[in-house]
């Protein structure tokens, strides 16, 4: 990193700059005092800002129509993850059409950098970064998100469905 230094004569006149800054602050104070509806701040946590649906927030594991996990435990997300925060344990499914599924899918949210590479690597649209963005927790909270949280947390209302279903895929001969 380089530090720029301005040693010119003009730079010694700092007072107009300071007063100008104070002026802006004062202007905002007065506007907010007499016109509270146009105030630009929010009373968090009572009021919450909603970002656009494209926002890359908390992870979601999508589900099929029957509510089971879409994930095939191919581990591409875990391989692509630069923070190495995803841990998956695969197992054999009883249904031969499903064959392989994760019995454990964990994201260490404290390591996650929300880069979205997992989403990009997923060949079956099983993991997405959703618009939720709050990840607070007190000391001792569980910052390792498991399948239950990722796919079936209350906000998701039973899980988010993928567009293509296995059955449809098989029927269309893919």
């Amino acid at each position, binding site marked *: 990193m380089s530090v720029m230094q301005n040693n010119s004569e003009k730079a010694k006149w700092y007072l107009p700059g300071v007063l100008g800054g104070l002026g802006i602050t004062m202007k905002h104070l007065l506007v907010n005092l007499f016109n509270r509806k146009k105030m630009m701040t929010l009373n968090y946590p009572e009021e919450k800002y909603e970002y656009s649906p494209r926002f890359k927030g908390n992870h979601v594991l999508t589900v099929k129509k029957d509510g089971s996990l879409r994930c095939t435990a191919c581990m591409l997300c875990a391989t692509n993850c630069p923070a190495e925060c995803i841990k998956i344990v695969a197992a054999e499914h009883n249904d031969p059409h499903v064959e392989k599924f994760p019995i454990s899918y964990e994201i260490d949210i404290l390591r996650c950098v929300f880069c979205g590479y997992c989403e990009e690597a997923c060949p079956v649209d099983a993991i997405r970064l959703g618009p939720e963005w709050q990840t607070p927790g007190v000391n001792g909270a569980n910052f390792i998100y498991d399948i239950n949280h990722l796919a079936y947390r209350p906000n998701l209302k039973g899980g988010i469905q993928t567009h293509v279903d296995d059955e449809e895929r098989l029927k269309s001969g*893919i």
Partner: protein
Amino acid sequence: MPKCTINGKEVEVKEGTSIIEAMQQSGDRIAHYCWHPGLSVAGVCRLCMVEIEGNPRVQIACNTMVTEGMKINNTSEKVRDAVKWGLDFHLINHPLDCPICDQAGECGLQDQYMEYGKYDPEMAEAKVKKHKVVDLGPTVVLDSERCILCSRCVRFTEEVSKTNELGIFNRGDRSEIGTHEGVELNNKYSLNTVDICPVGALTSKDFRFRQRVWYLKDAETVCNGCSNGCNVKVYFNKEGFFRVKPVYNEKVNGYWMCDEGRDIYKFVNKETRLLKAQVRGASGWTEMAGGAAAKNAHEVLKNTSGDSLALVLTAQYTVEEFDAIVSTFVNEFKTKKVFFWINNKETFDSFDGLLLRGDKNPNTKGLLKVLEKHGITATWADLTQGLGNGSIKTVVVAGPENQAVFPDFQERVKELSKAQNLIWLQAGKNDALMSLTGNVWLIPTKTFVEKDGTFINHAGLEQKFKKVTTIVSEALTLTEAALLLAGKNLTIPTATAQPFMPMNQREDQVTLEARKKNEFVFRRGSL
């Protein structure tokens, strides 16, 4: 000796060599799915196409013999085009199973597609659906949709294992690999079919879905499953060992290995291992570091006269270790009471005609050689007698790594527990040992993947192997244990100081060499 030109390089080959073999000799890459050096030529995959000068059509390399002055190439546009269309036919009914398939990452078809394919499919018809997850037998699962009908597995059961369980059934694009009516793929070499399957159609039940192959590192070593000493590759990562595959060695195992040998990774893994030394005195078991326990045992050994001290060896360690521990006993402790614990003498000479030997110890010959060198003639009867009349008070045992092949383990423990002091060097956990009473030292030892050494196989062939990784850091080799038991100090060789130190690096600066991925994370803060 005909001479030919392959991709511009001149190669001299033996009479009767096929082009594909000549290309391997010259180091040129060529795709092959149905051809396997250990099997007969089938010529069904049509992907090893080459162009021969003067021949208007491209030919398959596996079934065309080299003749004098032949000019071959497999890099021309014509060949690339032929391979591309051949690949198109292979992929007509091949499902997009790569996320589920165990072979993803080491699949020939994937590689070939990335090199020659990358086209838009031109088939408008739906794929032919075949059977998924077919249970072929106790070890192998078949997915006939993924199968490209190269017939390698069928030829393997015909030609190598000679059990003929597999066949190709139906015609045209409904052809499927399967077992004959009422037969299951259940022979002692069945997992070789998984190795030679060029796609993920045959998968091993043991390895299935446990790890993706790109998370595994591999290293060559010698199998310690039996006295045949097959050359193998072990696959592992920080979570442990996951599978074993054969490595070609003409003198020992060819291209194959047995199913039993593939289980050797299991007793190496941490969950079955003795992680800490256990020492039992008057006050019960205490945990100790491996080296400390050996030092502790020396206190007893130094007060023991030579005649009351015995050493029991199993043939599962390396020649170097046997030499070290036997010479320690002969020279330091002045005892020649060294006994060979033989697990199943009757079956030692049995052989199934292919690879499997009855002697389940990798180094019986090596142990006998060391015993002979030191002029040791003691027999087990001497030990039984000595323990019976109390003339042998202290016994040092180098127990087996692979406990499964020692059916008499419990009885021998019971017999040896008659000794006043029992010093047992053992790699794996064992309940029989933990329930012993009296003075017992249980010292963890390293397994064959954690040390360098030599095994001498049934035919007297010496095979050296290198250390693969460390699993139990406190475990000792017999060489180290012998030194410590004799009261000497163990010097750990330290890495020599780096001759060159970069100017901007502190002397005590930690370098993160092992971690190549995510390098930018560690360079944060510098532009």
